[in-house]
């Protein structure tokens, strides 16, 4: 009997040791899953009048019967809901007046101790402070929500492209320590409500919702004492950021649409007047004046950009003096080429295309000269 006991003990020790090595790190990474039973059974050895007695195992209410397994003292791990909604790229999304279904991207990360449903909603509700340095000037409309099929890595924030995912109202069973990207699409109002330089800030609100409710039923924190046999809910999400309330089962993030159109600037400089030294020419009759028109795109890639420019009254166009980005543009019927309208572009871009940006490689520059009558 002794040898059997020893063998049994040896076998069980080996298994316990192996189990510890394998299981402990994973358990620390995410917390014990909700619904897990935590059990404990103590045992006591003793003697009476010098005679060793059979060991007794414990129960929650007290056990005195030797030779039985006892009753484990058990409680069930409750649900600790922790999650966060975040804007992904730290910048506004550029839009244009009247542009519809403009996509912005958020990420929702679940660090609860188990999978969790999250209901989604988007609206024009504002954060306590303006974001990206711009006030909210107008409202977007017709919000739809789409859960990205793109891979989501909690360690690396990216901004995936919209891939025609269907409109949804919730994220179904987001795994623990997992994340999903959420696209919000909305329509830009027409000009002048949406005008160059104006911005609209929008909100994504994410609510922890019960499984199988399709995002419709919010999880409720249980107020009473623990029911050891039931999975209770505890909200533990952080974040006073953006006006979020801690531990209420709701996380919200904000993003911004920014209207960018073309900025046109026109300057004039007297080149020579036939009398003054270089650099000191005056605007006297007979003087040559050079006009410089710059067109900068503050928004999305533009096609079909056309410039129409009249020759100022009391001046005469200097034939063959027009350039676009430094290259000569031929006169049309002996007149300045843009009098009747003509395509302009960024340097090295196709006709009519002005790339967004403020660098010399993106701004279109038209120059022409006139003489003062």
């Amino acid at each position, binding site marked *: 009997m002794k040898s059997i006991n020893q063998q049994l003990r040896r076998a069980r020790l080996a*298994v316990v040791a192996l*189990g510890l090595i394998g299981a402990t790190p994973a358990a620390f990474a995410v917390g014990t899953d909700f619904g897990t039973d935590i059990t*404990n059974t*103590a*045992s006591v050895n003793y003697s009476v009048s010098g005679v060793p*007695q059979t060991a007794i195992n414990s129960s929650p209410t007290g056990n005195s019967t*030797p*030779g039985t397994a006892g009753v484990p*003292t058990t409680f069930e*791990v409750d649900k600790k809901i922790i999650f966060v909604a975040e804007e992904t790229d730290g910048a506004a999304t550029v839009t244009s007046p009247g542009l519809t279904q403009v996509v912005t991207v958020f990420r929702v990360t679940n660090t609860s101790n188990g999978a969790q449903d999250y209901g989604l909603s988007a609206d024009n509700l504002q954060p306590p402070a303006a974001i990206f340095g711009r006030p909210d000037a107008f409202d977007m409309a017709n919000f739809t929500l789409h859960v990205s099929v793109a891979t989501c890595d909690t360690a690396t924030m990216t901004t995936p492209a919209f891939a025609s995912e269907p409109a949804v109202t919730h994220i179904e069973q987001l795994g623990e320590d997992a994340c999903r990207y959420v696209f919000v699409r909305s329509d830009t109002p027409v000009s002048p409500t949406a005008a160059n330089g104006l911005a609209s800030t929008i909100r994504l609100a994410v609510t922890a919702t019960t499984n199988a409710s399709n995002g419709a039923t919010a999880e409720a924190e249980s107020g009473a004492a623990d029911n050891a046999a039931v999975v209770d809910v505890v909200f533990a999400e952080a974040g006073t950021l953006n006006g979020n309330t801690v531990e209420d089962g709701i996380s919200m993030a904000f993003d911004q649409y920014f209207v960018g159109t073309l900025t046109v600037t026109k300057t004039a400089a007297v080149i020579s007047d036939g009398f003054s030294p270089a650099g000191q020419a005056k605007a006297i009759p007979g003087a040559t004046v050079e006009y410089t028109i710059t067109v900068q795109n503050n928004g999305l890639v533009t096609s079909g950009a056309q410039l129409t420019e009249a020759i100022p009254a009391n001046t005469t166009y200097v034939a063959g003096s027009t350039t676009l980005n430094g290259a000569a543009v031929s006169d049309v019927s002996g007149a300045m080429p843009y009098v009747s309208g003509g395509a302009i572009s960024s340097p090295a871009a196709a006709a009519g295309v002005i790339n967004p940006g403020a660098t010399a490689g993106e701004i279109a520059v038209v120059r022409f000269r006139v003489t003062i009558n």
Partner: protein
Amino acid sequence: MIKGLKIFGFAAIAACGLSSQAFAQTPGCIVLKSIAEVEQEVVNAKGEKSTKLVPLTKAVPGTQVVWTITANNTCKQPSENVSINDPVPEHMSYVANSAVGPGADITFSVDGKIFAAAAELTVQENGVARKARADEIRHIRWAFKNSLAPGAQAFGRFRAVLN
């Protein structure tokens, strides 16, 4: 881990069965009880803070649970060499220096085999022995120095955090 525990339970039952078939239904001398509680801060009318143990409220990762094992001697003779063994529950980490037991020598084990004072426990890591961390302690033993008189109670207590 779960597999390990199941085998453990099987082994324990088998061992008991082999050694005690004759007394299986006869009550022993000790009633052994294990309960789980949490510490709660209470403020009295004077605004003084104190703590008390209350039945377990929400148990989520990070919750610290106070486990109390009581042994009551229900016989007319004293019980000698009373020794309580308690495994730290799976998914829980023992809180360093939290085990107490009046009149008991408390020893710990990482493997259920070698019991020693917490500071003397070692584990092998990459072939080198190092001191065991508190969360590596998986078994606690209270060996009571004195006999447990009829009607008397002995208890051991420890804290563990839910992983």
